[in-house]
């Protein structure tokens, strides 16, 4: 039961499924469920492909970090797939391939292989977003994504030229051995940082996000904002902790960009009147926070933050996209009073929002406390101030949204949420509440991840 199956099986299923077109959605469900089960039996090890040892052949790394990442991505993928399988039958194969690509992203230990999987998941993402019926927005996404991956490849090749290897760990070892000052190493890492930054929705590079998520539907919304966002942030984390060596001048600049992107994201969300825009801008801000935590070096809580964020975004986008499809527009005025008739969905939406805000009795509270305590213990006061200020603004516009969605007297929007969506949404929000109350497992997971030091795989 080696982790390669996580990639091989979906690809195999994808290849087979183009013959038997009508079964492809059911194959998708079966494979993705199978992978979630398979995840239970994965040993922590380095898997060499083709029998060639690490720096020469390609190696897949299964450690705590990638295990959590895999778990989050696969479970989220499976949930989104169940909801959307019935009305996006044609995309069965594409989704299989994107599953393989995402798993590859999480597992791979080789930089060039990361580029290939980045491309696979990227292209399948472009195709998924074509269902938004907005070809220009998808075109923007394609151009941005391709430019991003080109920059990543350029940075990668420069690194290869300087240190002669492609394996992440070997690269880290060689950089340390060569004693290259972090100024000299800055150019390639900068290119790779920006390359991944485009995909991870960091502010200056994410003008494609508004087009895609602004007009998303029940599949693209949760997929891009939930699954892909979590995956790209995990990749970001993997690179930042494993390979990158960031000099303090760049740390300053990057943190200025991140701080700007957090505050600007919240301000944009505050100023937008469309519900989906509010959600997408707040997810931009949260992406900024996640990368901020990675840059400050706390992988443990960053992973928890990303996974919680991923789950919450899937819930939020599912509900809002379904309502927008029925009502026709996602303006807050048109969706006013949405939860008056469907209280269960409203309750889980509210619970998820409160967990995003980091209020007690919800899992978000514990993660936020963890992040802040680590940021403070490292002695810096600026980032926590920014995070807290942004969560105040975030709180205000979410409360404004909630009061609008819950309270309206006459001609309420006639929206019926079908059972699987309701069931999924309730289960996730219940999870958030349960982990909010009983957060021992989260604590252990965070501690285990914290000592995931560079080079120590297991």
């Amino acid at each position: 039961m080696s982790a390669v199956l996580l990639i091989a099986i979906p690809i195999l299923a994808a290849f087979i499924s183009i013959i038997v077109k009508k079964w492809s959605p059911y194959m998708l469900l079966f494979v993705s469920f199978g992978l979630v089960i398979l995840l239970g039996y994965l040993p922590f090890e380095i898997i060499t492909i083709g029998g060639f040892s690490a720096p020469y052949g390609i190696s897949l790394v299964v450690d705590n970090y990638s295990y959590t990442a895999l778990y989050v991505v696969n479970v989220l993928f499976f949930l989104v797939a169940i909801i959307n399988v019935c009305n996006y039958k044609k995309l069965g194969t594409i989704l299989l391939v994107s599953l393989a690509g995402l798993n590859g992203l999480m597992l791979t230990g080789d930089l060039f292989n990361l580029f290939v999987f980045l491309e696979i998941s990227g292209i399948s993402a472009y195709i998924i977003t074509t269902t938004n019926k907005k070809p220009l927005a998808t075109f923007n996404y394609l151009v941005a994504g391709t430019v991003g991956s080109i920059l990543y490849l350029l940075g990668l090749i420069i690194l290869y030229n300087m240190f002669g290897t492609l394996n992440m760990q070997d690269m880290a070892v060689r950089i340390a051995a060569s004693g290259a000052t972090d100024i000299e190493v800055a150019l390639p890492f900068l290119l790779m940082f920006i390359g991944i930054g485009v995909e991870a929705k960091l502010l200056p590079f994410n003008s494609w996000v508004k087009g895609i998520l602004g007009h998303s539907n029940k599949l693209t919304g949760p997929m891009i904002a939930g699954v892909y966002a979590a995956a790209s942030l995990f990749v970001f984390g993997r690179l930042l902790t494993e390979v990158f060596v960031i000099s303090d001048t760049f740390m300053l600049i990057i943190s200025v960009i991140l701080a700007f992107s957090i505050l600007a994201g919240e301000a944009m969300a505050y100023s937008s009147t469309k519900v989906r825009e509010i959600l997408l801008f707040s997810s931009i801000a949260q992406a900024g926070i996640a990368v901020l935590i990675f840059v400050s070096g706390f992988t443990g809580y960053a992973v928890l933050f990303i996974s919680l964020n991923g789950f919450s975004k899937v819930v939020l986008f599912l509900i809002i996209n379904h309502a927008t499809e029925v009502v026709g527009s996602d303006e807050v005025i048109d969706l006013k009073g949405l939860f008056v008739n469907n209280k269960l969905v409203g309750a889980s939406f509210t619970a998820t929002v409160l967990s995003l805000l980091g209020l007690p009795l919800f899992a978000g509270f514990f993660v936020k406390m963890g992040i802040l305590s680590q940021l403070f213990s490292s002695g810096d006061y600026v980032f926590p101030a920014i995070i807290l200020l942004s969560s105040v603004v975030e709180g205000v516009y979410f409360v404004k949204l909630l009061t609008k969605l819950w309270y309206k007297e006459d001609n309420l929007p006639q929206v019926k949420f079908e059972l699987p969506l309701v069931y999924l949404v309730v289960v996730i929000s219940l999870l958030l509440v349960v982990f909010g109350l009983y957060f021992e497992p989260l604590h252990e997971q965070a501690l285990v991840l914290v000592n995931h030091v560079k080079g120590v795989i297991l």
Partner: protein
Amino acid sequence: MKNFLSLVLVLALGGMIILSLQNNQYFTAYGEVDITKRVSESYIDRDVNGGTQAVEFGVANNLESGPANIVTAIVADYRSFDTLGEVTVLFVSSLGVALLLASGKQKRLDLHFHPNFMLRVGSRALFGIILMTGIFVIVHGHLTPGGGFPGGTMIASSILLLYLADDNFRTKVKSFKTLESIAGSLYVIIGLVGLFAFDYFLVNFLDNGILGELFSAGIVPIVYALIGLKVGSEISGIIDNFLTEEVA
């Protein structure tokens, strides 16, 4: 004004990258690359897993990785996972194009360009030659430069030739799809067999034979052939999608 601004920006960026690469003492200049400091040195000497046999054309028997063409060795053996990813990328994009353009019943696009006599006859003759060279390139992938990808595109170009030659020529798209899927799944199955039988995914479990022989380098030629067929059918599928339009 915007163009001028972006020109200045781009030039400045280019200049900065070039200058920074020059000043960087670790960035070896063009041409003075010392292979020994790089990973690829052991690809050339085939001693990744400690193989001690000196690599000599026509003499070395059952080397660590068989193909004479080192690039093919890297592509299909050392880093064959990349190639698998590679194939999926092409597979996904062709599928995407098909999804975008060919949603219903398709018929040939009536272009205002009609092939004249010269093209029709010439392409009939050329079709066979291009096809043959394509297949040759695929089969000798492990000995001579080329391999699955270039060979596949040659096959596709021969099919493109047929498209240009005759207005209502349409390949049986269905058959290409099945060929593509069989080739792809065979490739993955070989990998899985390697995993289950020889506990490494995509391991070269056949014996590598003598360097430079036609029948050497274990599964590499088989894998390359499959890739060639797959790439050929995918690209011709893409051509077909672009040259057809929906039946109104």
